[in-house]
């Protein structure tokens, strides 16, 4: 992941991709907890429009993209897993 200037707390862009199914909401909740835990300054956004979702080139939702890079697709991760993705 390209990090700019070594500042790890740089504003991360986290996108949750999903059209609003129960699993997408679960994923949003998990990600919210993980961000809270890590104390990071991250902007979480929900991408619900299917055409916007397709720009991430995924084939299954819910999906999680960090700084426009898809990390998880088609399943709900654990808080620990997301935390480890946030703090590499």
């Amino acid at each position: 992941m390209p990090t700019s200037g070594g500042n790890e707390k740089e504003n991360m862009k986290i996108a949750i991709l999903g059209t609003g199914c129960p699993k997408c909401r679960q994923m949003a909740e998990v990600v919210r907890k993980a961000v809270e835990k890590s104390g990071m300054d991250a902007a979480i956004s929900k991408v619900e429009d299917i055409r916007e979702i397709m720009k991430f080139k995924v084939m299954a939702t819910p999906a999680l993209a960090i700084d426009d890079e898809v990390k998880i697709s088609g399943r709900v991760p654990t808080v620990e897993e997301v935390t480890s993705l946030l703090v590499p």
Partner: protein
Amino acid sequence: MAWGLVYQRLSPFAKWATYSLFPLSPGTHLTSALEFFLYEAPKVLMLLTLVVFVVGVVRSFFTPERARGFLAGKKEFAGNGMAALLGTVTPFCSCSAVPLFIGFVTAGVPLGVTFSFLISAPMVNEVALVLLYGLFGWKIAAIYLGMGLAIAIGSGWAIGRMGMERYVEEWVFANAEAGSGVIPEEQKMTWEMRLRLGLDAVRDIVGKVWPYLLAGIAAGAAIHGYVPENFMASVMGADAWWSVPLAVLLGIPLYSNAAGIIPIVQALLGKGAALGTALAFMMSVIGLSLPEMVILRKVLKMRLIATFAGVVGMGILIVGWLFNLVM
């Protein structure tokens, strides 16, 4: 191991519980209904838990990307068969239908083969099969599996033959690299993660399904205890040819998961509906759902959606009729 031991002890337990915990004498309807319930309820629940767990772990080895890799450029028929089988084991929820459809079609999976996948994925699933096995026996579960795959293969093949590619929305083909943004997950998953996915599936599915399941078994117990056996084969039976189309039509606007529909199937059978009619109803409810069609409208033009519903509906109809005829 512990699972197997408990499972084997269920029948004596049900007998013991029926006769020692309740002041009932053997041989009455109430007694036999109660014993049926006390035996079947834990049995089916345990079976469901085990199967959902195993399937959850197995599914961690399959991803839509992998399924697409198998299916891209496959010929008709063999491709339809493979798609129907992959549809049963690849993790899929109907909210993922659109990205999956785009990923398949843009990678060169033929339209008909894609439909075989989309038809079998919701219809042929482990919950439906376990419940049918637990409540009606392995023959009916096997029949459902066979019917479901046949409909997915046949309908997908028919849609492919019709050459309806022009009824796919144009914007779909602008996503030429759909699915390429994802690192194949099966390569970086640990066993711990796979087992966790199995447990997640159990919590998710069994947690949601158990009330329906108990309702279904209670309905079964009532029939078991009270309704004479030859009652099944009468009124709404195989002779009424219109019962199958009626069941299919009724099933389309109704939307439910496999577990929700089982109590209704129980009741239908209890009221004497023929097996083909009851299974056709179940397939129509699970396999043909309005919400899924609304979701698919984003990538398919009305004409193709109508064809899809029509072809699958016909498939269910034919199978239901054939089944009533043979039985």
